[in-house]
């Protein structure tokens, strides 16, 4: 082995592989009197599977992440398609305008959503001014809907950008060929553009799902009691509850889901006729 191999694999082992391995192993330990007992057991997993509130939280969170992905897929596709139809100068501007919020602090955006959704918030002021409601709606903040809306807004760029990139990759010749062969606008869209841009949508949905299902900041800041998600459950094990092995075991389940989704997205997003 050469020196550079040693440095690279040394770094990878020390700061990526061994930490991940120790986290995986930790899920099989347990806690007695606030200290970790290093003896392997399946007790954590048995508890997670048998405990109703853990199970409910798990499925509630996955469902929420799925809903956010689905909503964003529709909104994101429409937006990406709109950008793609603009003249080039507009396109660049719109893409940059979409990327800018990605570089803005995540926590700040969540906080800002509070100002929009709150009882005194912007959305309520608008609804009141338009006469849609008579008094401020308090149901917009500190519940699961608030988490859905916030995550959806914050994660939108992760959906639009990959779809836009795959739309942009469609060669003009393919579109011309479709037109030459007599395909109408709708037919071209359904049989050429949509299948060719779907991989971008799948990548976007993957990002959205993985990020939404593991998030604990948005639920913590806008979710209230109803918005207690799986991410918060994990995080709480490392705070007050101080049960790191249980937290690790809970995360192992989350990681399995995330890896399965990433794997599925790779298969689906790279169909045989494109390989």
């Amino acid at each position, binding site marked *: 082995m050469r020196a550079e191999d040693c440095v*690279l694999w040394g770094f990878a082992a020390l700061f990526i592989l061994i930490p991940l391995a120790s986290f995986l192993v930790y899920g099989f330990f347990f806690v007695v009197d606030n200290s970790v007992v290093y003896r392997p057991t399946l007790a954590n997993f048995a508890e997670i599977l048998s405990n109703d509130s853990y199970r409910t939280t798990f499925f509630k969170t996955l469902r929420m992440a799925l809903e956010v992905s689905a909503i964003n897929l529709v909104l994101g596709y429409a937006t990406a398609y709109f950008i793609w139809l603009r003249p080039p100068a507009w396109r660049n501007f719109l893409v940059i*305008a979409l990327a800018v919020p990605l570089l803005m602090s995540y*926590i700040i955006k969540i906080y*800002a959503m509070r100002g929009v959704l709150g009882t005194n918030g*912007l959305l309520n002021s608008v609804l009141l001014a338009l006469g849609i409601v008579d008094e401020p709606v308090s149901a917009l903040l500190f519940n699961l809907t608030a988490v859905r809306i916030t995550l959806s807004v914050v994660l939108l760029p992760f959906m639009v950008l990959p779809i836009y990139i795959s739309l942009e990759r469609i060669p003009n010749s393919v579109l011309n060929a479709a037109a030459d062969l007599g395909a109408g606008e709708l037919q071209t869209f359904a049989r050429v553009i949509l299948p060719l841009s779907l991989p971008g949508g799948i990548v976007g949905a993957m990002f959205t799902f*993985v990020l939404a299902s593991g998030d*604990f900041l948005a639920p913590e800041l806008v979710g209230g009691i109803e918005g207690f998600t799986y*991410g918060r459950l994990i*995080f709480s094990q490392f705070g007050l509850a101080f049960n790191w092995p249980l937290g690790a075991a809970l995360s192992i389940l*989350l990681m399995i889901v995330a890896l399965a989704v990433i794997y599925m997205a790779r298969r689906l997003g790279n169909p045989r006729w494109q390989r």
Partner: protein
Amino acid sequence: MKRLRLLDVSLASVSFLVYLALYLPILLVFVLSFFSMRRGRVRWDTFSFEWYARLFSNESLGEALLNSIIVGITAIIAATVIATLAALHVNARPSSRSARMLEYVIFLPFLLPPIITGLSLLIYFREIGVSRGLATIIVGHAVFVLAIIYRIILTRLNSLSRSLVEAAQDLGASRLQTFRFIILPNLRMPLLTAGILAFALSFDETMITLFLAGTDGTLPVRLYAMMRVGFTPEINALITLILGFSIVLTVVFAFAWRRSGGIDNNRITRI
């Protein structure tokens, strides 16, 4: 034709709503950093810099900002060295199995939910007896931004003509000389781009940091603590300042990205 019109209009309105949703919250915070609010209405007659003045007398925030900068710069230097080594390694032997394995490993902390990267490092550091502090945060950030820097540098390396390196070696340049005089000059823009992007990511990173921070946290961690306690208008002022900083970084980044060829390089190598 008429149906198409309708489709155009609905596409445009959805896109408009998407952009509105992305920018409105931020705009609201900006406005509220100068005005006070009462009963859900902004009082336009109350323009002042009061919240900014209060902000500058808050010492813990200054400390947190300094921590953020120290963490960002250190993590990026470390990550850039490793990422460049890794990119050179993979570029030199693209079909080697160990090189592809290495690539997977580098991408893991970026692809997995941040909560998992954070808690695995937390457990690891506890087990080897390293207590939480700036050093642990730096490791977390370096690992997190590694994949981005690696990707940008590798893209540039792959677009470089192999004959350049071969010519240098034919003329008797050592490996180090080839790197110093042939490869490095070509990496200047990608390194700058990657560095700016990585700094922006590190500056905003919250989830991994929350696990790894001891008593001295970075700015987002401090913000998080403030937000949980409740609403203070100073936060709006602070956020406005951070956003201003982020926007400047983004503009610089976009400029650097364009000059370095951006996505175009990628497309050329694909064809």
